[in-house]
C-alpha cells in the first residue's frame, strides 16, 4: 500500500515479544499458574508466541486460551456484523494468573468486553494485559501492563498488525483510514 508507514519489521516484532516475555516472567517471578489468553483474531497467534518465549525461559508448558469478545461487544448494531469465533480455555481459569493478549490497544473497549467475557469463565487470581502496540486514544480507564511499542497516532489512521499465521508475514504498519483492509 502506497501511503502506509512501517512501524515494526519481523525482527522488531520478535525482539519486542521476547522483551515482553522477560517482563512477564520477571513480574511473576516465574510462570507458575500463568495462562495466556489471546483475543481473536491476532491476539491468538501473539499469545502463542509469547507463551513459546516464556516456555523457553522457564522450561515449562504455558497454558494458552483464546477468547472471542463479539458476544460481549457494546457496538454490535453499529458496525459490520462480526463473525463469532470459538472461545477455548485449556483449563479452568479459577485462581490462574491470566494475561490477556491483543495486537493493538486503542479505545479500550475490546479489553472491557474481554474482561466481561473472561469472568463468565471463572474467577482468576489476577488479570493483566499485554499488547504489541499501544496507539493511545483511550475511552475507558484501561492500561496495558506489557507493551511492545507505544505509537502516537491520529484517529484518521489505522494500526495494522500483520502476523504470518494470518497475513503471511510479520510486520506492523500505520495506514490511512481510507486504505483500511477489510480483513480486520
Amino acid at each position, binding site marked *: 500500500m502506497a501511503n502506509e508507514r512501517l512501524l515494526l519489521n519481523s525482527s522488531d516484532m520478535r525482539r519486542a515479544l521476547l522483551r515482553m516475555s522477560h517482563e512477564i516472567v520477571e513480574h511473576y517471578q516465574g510462570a507458575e499458574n500463568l495462562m495466556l489468553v489471546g483475543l481473536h483474531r491476532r491476539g491468538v497467534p501473539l499469545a502463542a508466541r509469547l507463551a513459546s518465549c516464556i516456555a523457553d525461559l522457564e522450561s515449562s508448558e504455558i497454558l494458552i486460551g483464546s477468547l472471542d469478545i463479539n458476544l460481549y461487544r457494546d457496538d454490535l*448494531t453499529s458496525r459490520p456484523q462480526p463473525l463469532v469465533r470459538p*472461545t477455548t480455555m485449556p483449563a479452568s481459569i479459577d485462581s490462574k494468573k491470566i494475561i490477556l493478549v491483543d495486537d493493538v490497544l486503542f479505545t479500550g473497549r475490546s479489553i472491557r468486553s474481554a474482561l466481561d467475557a473472561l469472568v463468565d469463565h471463572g474467577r482468576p487470581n489476577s488479570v493483566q494485559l499485554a499488547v504489541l502496540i499501544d496507539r493511545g486514544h483511550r475511552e475507558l480507564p484501561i492500561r496495558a501492563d506489557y507493551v511492545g511499542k507505544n505509537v502516537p497516532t491520529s484517529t484518521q489512521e489505522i494500526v495494522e498488525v500483520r502476523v504470518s499465521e494470518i497475513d503471511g508475514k510479520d510486520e506492523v504498519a500505520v495506514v490511512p483510514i481510507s486504505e483500511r483492509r477489510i480483513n480486520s
Partner: protein
Amino acid sequence: MSSNQKITPNRKHVLDLDDFSKSEIDNLLHSATVMKEVLNRDIKKVPSLRGKVILTLFLEASTRTRVSFEEAGKLLSADVINISGSGSSAEKGESLLNTALTLQAMRADLIIIRHPLSGAPYFVARHLDHTSVVNAGDGRHAHPTQGLLDLMTIYEKIGSLNDKKVLIVGDVLHSRVARSNIHGLQAAGAEIIISGPPTLVPLWLQSNDKDSPITYQPNLDVAIQGTDVVMALRLQTERQASGMLPSIREYTRRWQVTENRMVSANNSAIIMHPGPLNEGIEISSSLAHSEVAAINEQVTNGVALRMALLYQLLTFNSESTEELAI
C-alpha cells in the same frame, strides 16, 4: 469450512430453508458451534442481545420449541416475552394481522411464531415493516430451525453429507419437519429417500419421476439399506381415526425403525427424531435409548442453533464485509 466466504447478510426473516444457500447454512452452523461452547459453560449467559425484545407468539401447543427459543434468547441477554394461544387475544377473536401489528407497535425486534396454519409466518412477515419474523413451525409447511439443528447434529455425528444417504420415515404428508429438512439436506448435497404409508406421502413425490431429487420407497426394509441417517417422523395417532391408516399396529409393523431393520443401514448410521417421540411407534423403545440415537443431542443443538440464528438476525448490519477465516 473454507475461508473467504462472505457472511450472508440481508436476511430479515427466517421463514423456511428454501432460500438458504449452502454457505449461509455453513456459516450459521459454525456460529452454532461457538454458541454450543457458551451453552457448556457454568455461566451460560452472554450480553450480546442486551436490550433486544423478542416475542414468542405460539398459537399452537408446543413446549420444547418455545422453551428452546426462550433459552436461546435469554442466554444472549435478550428480553424474551412469551405469548401463547391461551393467554393471547387470538382467543378473543382478534385477527392474526392485528395481533402482529400490535406486537410491532410495541417495538418488538423479532417475533418467533408457531401457528397451526401453513403460511401464517409469511402472512405476518408480509404485513410487518420493522420486525423480523422467525418461523417456529407453521402447519404442515416448514420448521426451519428444526431443519438446521438436524443438519448440525448430522454434521457433528457423521461429517459431510456429500454422497450420504438420508432416509426420512413416516408421515411426510403432514410433516413440516420433513419439508424443511428436505430443503436443508438438498442444500447439503445428501441423497434423500422417503419411506412411509402411501396415504401419508404426497402423491407427486411418489411418482419418482427423474426430475425429482427424492426417491420414494414404500418398503422400509428396502429403503433403509445403506443409509447413513434415519430420520423418523412423529406419527399423529389421529391418522387412524381419519381413515388414513388401517391401524397404529399395522404402521408399527411396516414402518417402525427397529434394531433388526438398522442392521441393513450403514454401520455408523444414526437415528434422529424431532420429538416428541411416541415410544414404541416410530422407533422401537430400545433403539430410541441406544447410543445410535442422536435425539438428545438434537435438543442441545437446538438451543445453540437458535442462539446463532437470533444473534445473526439481531446484530444485522447491511455493510457487513467481514470474511470467514478460521
